């Protein structure tokens, strides 16, 4: 949340998360080296350097699959949401592991000639019309550049200064990086390694990632349509029944304008604010009230339900909406008020008074 920027916003949970990532990477590389020296031996023996290149390359690819699965899984199963909390660090770690792979490749295959390693990389193979001899390294290099751009702009400073919309679109380029990496492996490692297991494993990964994204996207689109309320010029619209809202939770309503509104119940009070977190657009309607504030399920950003403002010293603000309760029904004025506008919460007692 805004106030003076810090290098890394670590807390106890994030430290554990990062420790698990680093330990996981270390264990994977060690296991790969041990297993690889057993599998590739005799006539098929490979040098320790190539083994290390493969260890970091496969590690980075597996990590990218995990990063890409976390988002849709969190949409489909809220219990996965804690993994989303620190996904940025996972993404940066994925880039760093990929960078080690690329640095080792440059050193080993392009570091001992007369040309400088980057020139050698670009000029040593230019068979762009061939599939079996395609210069797959270039695809990996472009993917790494995209991952670098994302890792370099992962701090909240960039979210604030590129604007959330541009930042989101920039970070969606991870899909492009993923496609390039799959092509990098298919045109590279799969051309030299003939065992049938490799294409099966890569294909399964692609099917898993693609199907999770498609299922989550289609489900979300359907849910939005189901929750859509038509306004037709009326000032107050029927948002939901009071009994639909769990204590400390919300019901999300989609307006005809595609905007989503989270109607929160906090004890005897009902308040409405934009469903979209000012940080990364997280679904506030899927969060909870913690310490009197609406808390985003993605990164824990908080807002007061009555005015949509983050508690001091933070400065984020969300649009709010007017509500009233009539005969157990929550009525919503669909006109968004300017971010941070105080709105007196509707009281649930009003139900009993009709």
């Amino acid at each position: 949340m805004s106030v003076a920027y810090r290098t890394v916003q670590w807390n106890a949970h994030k430290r554990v998360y990062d420790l698990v990532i680093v330990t996981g990477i270390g264990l994977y590389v060690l296991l790969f080296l041990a297993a690889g020296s057993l599998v590739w031996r005799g006539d098929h023996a490979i040098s320790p350097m190539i083994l290390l290149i493969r260890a970091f390359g496969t590690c980075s690819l597996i990590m990218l699959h995990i990063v890409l699965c976390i988002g849709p899984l969190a949409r489909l199963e809220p219990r996965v949401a804690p993994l989303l909390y620190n996904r940025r660090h996972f993404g940066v770690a994925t880039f760093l592991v990929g960078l080690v792979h690329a640095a080792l490749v440059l050193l080993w295959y392009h570091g001992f000639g007369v040309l400088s390693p980057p020139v050698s990389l670009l000029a040593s193979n230019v068979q762009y019309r061939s599939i079996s001899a395609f210069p797959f390294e270039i695809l990996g290099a472009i993917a790494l550049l995209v991952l670098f751009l994302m890792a370099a702009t992962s701090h909240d400073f960039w979210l604030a200064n590129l604007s959330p919309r541009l930042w989101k679109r920039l970070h969606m380029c991870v899909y492009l990086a993923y496609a390039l990496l799959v092509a990098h492996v298919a045109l590279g490692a799969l051309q030299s390694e003939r065992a049938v297991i490799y294409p099966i494993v890569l294909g399964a990964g692609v099917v898993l990632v693609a199907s999770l994204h498609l299922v989550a996207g289609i489900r979300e689109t359907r849910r939005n349509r189901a929750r859509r309320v038509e306004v037709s010029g009326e000032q107050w619209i029927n948002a939901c029944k009071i009994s639909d809202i769990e204590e400390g939770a919300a019901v999300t309503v989609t307006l005809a304008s595609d905007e989503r509104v989270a109607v929160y119940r906090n004890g005897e009070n009902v308040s409405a604010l934009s469903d979209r977190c000012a940080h990364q657009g997280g679904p506030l309607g899927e969060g909870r009230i913690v310490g009197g504030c609406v808390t985003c399920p993605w990164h824990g950003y908080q807002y007061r339900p009555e005015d949509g403002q983050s508690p001091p010293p933070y400065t984020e603000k969300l649009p709010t909406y007017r509500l009233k309760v009539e005969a157990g029904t929550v009525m919503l004025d669909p006109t968004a008020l300017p971010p941070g506008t105080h709105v007196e919460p509707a009281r649930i007692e009003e139900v009993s008074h009709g």
Partner: protein
Amino acid sequence: MALLIARLIVIVLGAYALIGVVFAIAFVTSGVTRVDHNATGSTRGFRLIIIPGVAALWPVMLARWIAAGRPRGTAPVGSASSDMALHLRWWLILPPLLVVAFILALINR
């Protein structure tokens, strides 16, 4: 010819990166607090950590620095539906492309 193009690409990218690094050092030293008031009182580590991004996106940050002080409208967050539609579009386009690439790669082994 391939060597010439490769050298040209490396020189252009290298020059872009060099300008970016020089600009980034100037930016984190004096520009960042003008562009973003939340950077006032920020840690030294924060300034170091944004250097790669500033170096990569230096034309964007140069424009921000030049425009610093002018009133900036509230940037739209965008609607959740438009974001979801964009995600979906990516995943409707990518799988067929990946399948084609995969098949081509396998039959040419």
